[in-house]
């Protein structure tokens, strides 16, 4: 069974601080996607990473795919209260996505 371990599960920090969320697996994924989900809503795509070692930036968010395509990280610089939410990673395997449990992020003003 393929698993995607996401950490930390919960993170509460002050506005302006930096943070990193990790997704780790023993399995190789053809691609990995990061989503943000608000309560009662569907996951909204942030980014897809495909190539081992790939780095993508989305404003203050930096996403990296591990060289072996087994892990990924999301780094947020100078976090803002608007970044508060649930961040999910999902690895692409055959026709389905294997999901992490999510990181609930709270940014305090």
């Amino acid at each position: 069974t393929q698993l995607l371990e996401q950490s930390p599960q919960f993170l509460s920090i002050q506005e302006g601080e930096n943070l990193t969320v990790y997704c780790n697996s023993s399995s190789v994924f053809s691609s990995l996607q990061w989503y943000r989900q608000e309560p009662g809503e569907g996951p909204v795509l942030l980014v897809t990473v495909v190539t081992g070692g790939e780095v993508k930036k989305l404003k203050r968010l930096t996403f990296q795919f591990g060289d072996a395509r087994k892990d990924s990280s999301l780094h947020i610089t100078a976090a803002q209260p608007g970044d508060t939410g649930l961040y999910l990673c999902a690895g692409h395997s055959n026709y389905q996505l294997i999901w992490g449990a999510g990181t609930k992020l709270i940014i305090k003003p």
Partner: protein
Amino acid sequence: EPEVTQTPSHQVTQMGQEVILRCVPISNHLYFYWYRQILGQKVEFLVSFYNNEISEKSEIFDDQFSVERPDGSNFTLKIRSTKLEDSAMYFCASSDGQSSGNTIYFGEGSWLTVV
């Protein structure tokens, strides 16, 4: 921006009743999916659909469930004889299967409550 749309947004049904959840995937997409998320739990894969047939399904997707693409735009999930444990948010998703990483886009979800 194109999006996946789902109806209804919320449905309450009695145990044992049949439910049909409807989805309109992004128009040029070829792969369609249903996922579900029980309150407070991980998103779970149910089924993927391509070329008018199921390409992959999970253990959750038993004989109680079926999917159909009745026309060129809709993709439905039918749950026969609903059970209390079917209460969850059901997400439809689609992808074009060709873009880098085969990115999957999700709808807003249909919240099903079985009473």
